[in-house]
Structure formats: structure tokens, C-alpha cells
């Protein structure tokens, strides 16, 4: 480098100040996930699992392998109340926006876990769920879920999260939350429009269908 000693030290010092002033660089998302924060956010892993795979029993969603944009948006939504959830609302509010981004990036970087053994839904429910997922019900103006979430429910971009391998109870709870309005953070109100057209039986069937799909399946392009 052409800089003389003194100038180099000043430049280096400036760089360190920059680094220190940029918390996102210093925040360890994995540390938050495993141990929580000193400001009161508990460890994410306590509910979402060590591998971020979620919990079927608790209905806690998988986070591993979801998009960083989606996860950040959801934490922000919990924080501002556009996605109402007592537990997650308090947790999101305990996190700074840089911490939210860091922990979202951590989970986005984890591999989607192998699907837990979900009990196979019975024939009638499975076929109804599959039809809604792959074909939709256009007589009611309902597009196929896969037209936005990807043919195997693997998710598209930041706005359309993966559905495959999510606990059925979680998916059903979200459809219900859009219907009642406790979740209203969907772009263009797209999910509100869909959820309003689905019966509880539809919701159960399509949730069971996606819960049984492996999280990391490669689509057959249907």
C-alpha cells in the first residue's frame, strides 16, 4: 500500500470504527437462535428445534431453509402487530432490526431438514388437498397453491414461503389467521382472498397435504 505509517493507522482505525458501528456484521444469528439475547428474547431453538425444523406436536413452523427476506418480514410483522402472536410479538420486539435480520439469515442458511414422518392423510382428504394444491378450485376463484408457492410447495422468492414439510397445525392456523384478520401482512391481500374462499375442511386437507411433502423435494414441475 502507498500509505505511510500514520495514514495507514488512521485508515485502519476508521475501518474498525465502521465495523463496530455496523452491528449486523457483529451479530451472530446462530447465537440468538441457540441462546437468545440478553435483552430478553429466548432461544428460537426452544420451540423451532435445534435444526430449525419446527415441531409437529407444538405446531411450530420450520424456519430452516426459508428465505431471509420472508423470515425478516415475518419478524418485522410480529413486531408491528400485522401478524398477531403474543409469544412471537414479544420476542420480535425484544430484537433490534439488525438482530432480526441476523437470525433470519442464520435460519435461511440452514439446510431444510428431512421431513418428519407425518401420518399419511386418508384418501379423500389427500385427494382434496392435492387438488387444491395442484389445480385449485377455479369454480370458487381459488388458484392452485402451487401457482405461487411452487409446484412442490418449495417456495418462491421472499413473498411466497415454502409450505412443504410445515406442520399441518401451523398451516391451518395461518389460514384461520388470514380469515379472521389476526394475520394481515400478506402482500396485496393475496392470502386473505384465498383463505376467505376455503372451508375449514379445505384448509385441513391442503394443510395435511403439504405437511406430508418433504421439505427439500425437487418439483416434478406440476
Amino acid at each position: 500500500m502507498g500509505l505511510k505509517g500514520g495514514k495507514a493507522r488512521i485508515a485502519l482505525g476508521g475501518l474498525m470504527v465502521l465495523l463496530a458501528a455496523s452491528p449486523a456484521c457483529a451479530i451472530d444469528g446462530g447465537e440468538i437462535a441457540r441462546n437468545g439475547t440478553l435483552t430478553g428474547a429466548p432461544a428460537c431453538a426452544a420451540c423451532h428445534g435445534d435444526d430449525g425444523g419446527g415441531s409437529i406436536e407444538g405446531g411450530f413452523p420450520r424456519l430452516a431453509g426459508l428465505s431471509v427476506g420472508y423470515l425478516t418480514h415475518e419478524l418485522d410483522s410480529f413486531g408491528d402487530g400485522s401478524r398477531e402472536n403474543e409469544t412471537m410479538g414479544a420476542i420480535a420486539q425484544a430484537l433490534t432490526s439488525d438482530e432480526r435480520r441476523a437470525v433470519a439469515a442464520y435460519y435461511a442458511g440452514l439446510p431444510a431438514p428431512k421431513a418428519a414422518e407425518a401420518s399419511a392423510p386418508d384418501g379423500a382428504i389427500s385427494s382434496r388437498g392435492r387438488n387444491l394444491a395442484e389445480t385449485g378450485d377455479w369454480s370458487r376463484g381459488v388458484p392452485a397453491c402451487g401457482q405461487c408457492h411452487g409446484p412442490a410447495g418449495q417456495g418462491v422468492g421472499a413473498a411466497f414461503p415454502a409450505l412443504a414439510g410445515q406442520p399441518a397445525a401451523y398451516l391451518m392456523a395461518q389460514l384461520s389467521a388470514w380469515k379472521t384478520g389476526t394475520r394481515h401482512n400478506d402482500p396485496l391481500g393475496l392470502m386473505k382472498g384465498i383463505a376467505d374462499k376455503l372451508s375449514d375442511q379445505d384448509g385441513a386437507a391442503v394443510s395435511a397435504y403439504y405437511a406430508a411433502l418433504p421439505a427439500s423435494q425437487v418439483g416434478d414441475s406440476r
Partner: protein
Amino acid sequence: MSLARHGAASLATVLALGLTLALPQIGAAGADREGAVPPFVPPPDSAIPDDDLGKVIRLGEHIFHDTRNQASAFVGNDLRCTNCHLDRGRLGHSAPLWAAYVTYPAYRAKNRHVNTFAERLQGCFRYSMNGKAPPLGDPVLVALEIYAAFLAHGAPVGVKLPGQGYPKLTKPKGLDIPHGREVYAAKCALCHGENGAGQASSDGTIVFPPLWGGRSYNWGAGMSSVVNAAGFIKANMPLGQGNSLTDAEAWDVAAYIDSRERPQDPRFTGDLAATRAAHHDSPYDFYGQTVDGVTLGAQSWPAGTEAR
């Protein structure tokens, strides 16, 4: 024609007969929300026979849905039939197959001769899919044709059915492309991307189709006419929220989309002005016009790109 010889009384009889033919549908499906004649309802999937005929019908449906993989030799972009013909060619006001099937053979101003349905399908591959026309008799065309015939089973022949094609919106006073750009950013970019290139899922499957650029429909496609695009958008977009845009929003966003560059018209003669005069002579067609500093058609991607 015999109509001319027999005069008005016979014409009235013919009209009455047409009305009579339509009546059973009214009774079968009930009035739709506008109170107009309801669209024809195609047979359910369960009506596909479980035999060799049914196999070809199902193949046609498969091609219709997964066009790039099932008809790869004839597809040159990232679209599939179902992008413009929603619900597997079943949905009214989204150019349903059942309504198209019963209007062919037909004279088309586009190529100035009588087209069979198979020739019409060839046009879809050549223009909308920016690929190559399958030869007449090719298994791809045969399967698509029998799939369309299946969907049209029970429909009256030669009748323009409600829901046919795309809705014809009242012509606007003008097209406002800057307004269209705003509508696009607010309502369309979420799925189709800021640059109109569409979006794929994490495994690379194209989920949201590209609307312009080298992987979309070419300048010869029906959708490159703002009239068609506005009608489709009004009735069907955003997906699941059909008829939520105003007519002006639909017209202007269609104008924005159809004033971006896309693959060349396969009928391009090398003379942009002459090609425009021959095939694009309409205020609702931007081919050959200069928009936002780009003379459309002058620097187009090649027509008939190979499948990738």
C-alpha cells in the same frame, strides 16, 4: 347464402333456434353474478375415459400444463399453455379451450385464410411459445386437439360461447404508459419481477411467467396486442383477484408490458416499418414504435429460440 334468399323471417327463425340451443345451459348452470348467460361448463376430469383415448387426452393435458418439458422441441421460452389459459384451459374469460375448439375451422384475418384448429395450435407454438410449429399430425398437436375436444364435449358447435377468448374492454381515450408502470410496480412486480423476467422456485421451476424479454412471448403473439393483454389482465390478474383492477389500470399496465422489448416477430421481413404495416397496424400494438427511447422490434431477441 340461403339467409339472403329466405329473408328476414328465416333469419329470425335461425336466431330463435340459436336461443333455444342456449337455453339448456341456462337451466343447467344457473345465472352468473352479472345475470348474463352462464359460461359452458366443461366435463370434469372424472369423465376422461380410462382407455387408450383417455391416455391421449391426459397426455394433452400434461403438455398443456408442462409445455416446456412435454413439447420441448417446439418451445423456445419459459411459458406454458396454462399461463394464458388458466385452470388448464377450462376458465372462462381466459381463452378457454372449449370455446376455441367449437369456433374452428375459421377464417382468420391474421393469416388471411381458413385455419383448422390444428393450424391454430401451431400458431401458439410459433408465436406465444416463441418456438417452432409442430408439423400437422405430430403427436403433440394430436394430443392437444383431443384434449380441447374433450373439454368442448357437449358444447354447441359454431356458437361464440360466453367466456370465449378474453373480455373486450371498452376502448380507452388513450394509453398512459407511465401510469401503467406504476400499476405494474404496485400489483404485478411482486410475482413477475421488476424487470418482467418472472420468478422461479428454489429448484429452478418457472413459477411466475416472464412478461417481456427474451424468454417471453414474441411480437407475433396475440398477447403482444394491448387489446388482448388488457382483457386477460382485467379478468384474471392479480391471480385470484380477477376484476379488481379498473379498466384504465388494465389498459395502462397492458400497454406498459406490451411496450417492452421481446423476441422478434417470426414474420419479420427485415424491414421494421413494412412488418408493422403488414401485421401490427393498430394503435394498440407498439411493435415498430419508439417507447422510452427503444424502437421496439429493432433490437429484438431472435424469434424461434431453441429450448434451453
